[in-house]
């Protein structure tokens, strides 16, 4: 790549939309993710996660807008665009009658950048013989072979769609540990789609929350956590009297628990003056709050967060 990758977002979507017949699977999706690190793509089943990934790989063509990987639009279906992104589809499809060696031969035949040494080293480390047929491998081993295929393609962006959904707890941990290691070693940008939010906690640096085909939230996890707070306030207090924007409000008998999106200093000053209890928000709590918002509501897209300190991490879109 000749471009200065530091200045070009690893992933960038611009008003991206995909319609299936009369139904929009994804609509008005705009975000930019900087290179490096792990991106969590969170949403319930049917939120549009797979659609977003398929559009990014170029397996689907967008109905409107576009998505680019390191500045290269995915729709083009050109070798240049395809070389920039690896994709591990849901249920990690492989040719069942192939041996592991055949799968790698397949990868080598279809990818000029194929890293055979990496593929073989990973299989040796995992104790998976190259001569075994794919259909005789366990689910966890198949997932590892599929991940190895994606890694050995040596693309700068790796997309994983529900990669551990079919795995047992041990295999899940092993798999995720390998993904994190690979990302750290080679500076990969990894996007992991999952409907299990807890799975992504402590793993991702960037978060995209998708619901009903709409992007609800996008931003660096540190910024998002710093830019939100949970306030416990008297129940009769109006939303307008709270600092920042109210994302979610739960009323009990006398008190309300409110998740607000606001700069931390604003929250501190307001809480101090009024005597409210302000607590930091947790990753899962934050993601869930945005998932519970009706999809029609305008996405937050981290707009208030540009002012929240680490603007340098957010890539202008």
């Amino acid at each position, binding site marked *: 790549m000749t471009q200065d990758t530091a200045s070009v977002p690893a992933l960038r979507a611009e008003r991206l939309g995909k319609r*299936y017949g009369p139904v929009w699977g994804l609509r008005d999706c705009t975000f930019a993710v900087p290179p490096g690190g792990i991106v969590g793509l969170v949403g319930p089943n049917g939120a549009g996660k797979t659609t977003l990934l*398929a559009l990014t*790989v*170029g*397996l*689907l063509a967008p109905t409107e807008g576009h998505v680019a990987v390191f500045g290269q639009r995915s729709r083009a*279906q*050109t*070798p240049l665009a*395809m*070389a920039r*992104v*690896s*994709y591990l*589809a*849901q*249920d990690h*499809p*492989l*040719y*069942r009658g*192939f041996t592991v060696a*055949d799968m790698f*031969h*397949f*990868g080598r*035949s*279809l*990818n*000029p*950048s194929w890293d055979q040494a990496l593929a073989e080293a990973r299989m040796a480390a995992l104790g998976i013989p190259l001569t075994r047929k794919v259909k005789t491998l366990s689910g966890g081993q198949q997932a590892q072979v*599929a991940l190895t*295929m994606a890694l050995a*393609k040596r693309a700068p962006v790796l997309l994983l769609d529900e990669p551990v959904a079919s795995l047992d707890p041990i295999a899940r941990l092993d798999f995720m540990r390998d993904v994190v290691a690979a990302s750290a070693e080679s500076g990969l940008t990894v996007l992991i789609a999952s409907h299990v939010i807890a799975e992504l906690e402590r793993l991702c640096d960037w978060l995209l929350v998708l619901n009903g085909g709409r992007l609800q939230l996008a931003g660096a996890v540190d910024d998002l956590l710093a830019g939100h707070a949970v306030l416990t306030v008297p129940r009769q207090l109006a939303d307008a009297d709270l600092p920042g924007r109210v994302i979610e409000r739960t009323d009990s008998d006398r008190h309300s628990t409110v998740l607000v999106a606001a700069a931390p200093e604003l929250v501190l000053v307001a809480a101090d003056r009024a005597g409210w209890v302000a607590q930091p928000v947790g990753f899962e709590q934050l993601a869930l709050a945005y998932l519970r918002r009706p999809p029609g509501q305008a996405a937050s897209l981290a707009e208030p967060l540009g002012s929240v300190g680490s603007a340098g991490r957010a890539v202008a879109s």
Partner: protein
Amino acid sequence: MIWVTWRQHRAQALTMLGVLAIIAVYALAVGLWMRSSFNSDDLGPCVARSGGADCAATINSFFQQFNRGPVMPLVILFFLLPGFLGAVAGAPVLGTELERGTWQLAWSQTVPRGRWLAVKLGLIITALVVFAALLSAIMTWAWGPLDEVSIRLTPPPFNLEGIWLPCALLCGFGLALLAGLLLRNTIGAMVAGYFATEIPFLITTLAVGPNVFSTTKTVDCTGALCRTASTNTVPPVSGHLGDLVNGVTHAGNHLVVSYTPASAFWPMQFLTGGIFLTFAAAAIVSAVWLLHRRTT
């Protein structure tokens, strides 16, 4: 891509080679037997000498001996082959990828799916044409003696010789390929492709019969022939072994013969092949177009 195509389709390729080998051995046996019979009964020299006029009875018995009986299995097989082998070769190309979800793997490597399909289709179609051409060549050789004394304008041997088999096989392949894309299921696409191939079969059988090239001529005759001449007379009253006589009208000392000359073989072959290839091309172009358009 060449390796990938071979690895994914080698089972079908080996099946085809097996079919080719079995048919070749059987055809060789029948062909040799036919040749020895053709020569030992003084049939060959008689045909060469008199155009069949001196040995009508021998021709008839030779025809009866071979045109049914030993070659029948081959004839039946050839009616089934294009639809069956076309379905076996065509349905998995897209059907299996879509059924198993491996399309997501195949089309997310560094080869655009247009090129992926182009290489696969190029290699598979070449293999099918070579296979069918070899099979036709073997059958043309095996059928040689019968061809000298019988009519080539109807199946058999119309569907065993010339370009019929390559064209019909490509037609079966194209329809099964498209069925695989539409049904996203290998077995379903094989069945659908096989039955879809019946449509061009019916069209070619009903619309491109020898009667399309039928012509009439008046033949002078004398004696018994004038009274007994019929469509089944050997050699045909039109004058050439290989002509197909459709009707004979007796009119005094001459006959009005409506017939399709043996020379109509190639025009009929090209017309039939053209219909098959039109179906094949329409199906393959549709598949390529749909693949670019909708891939969910």
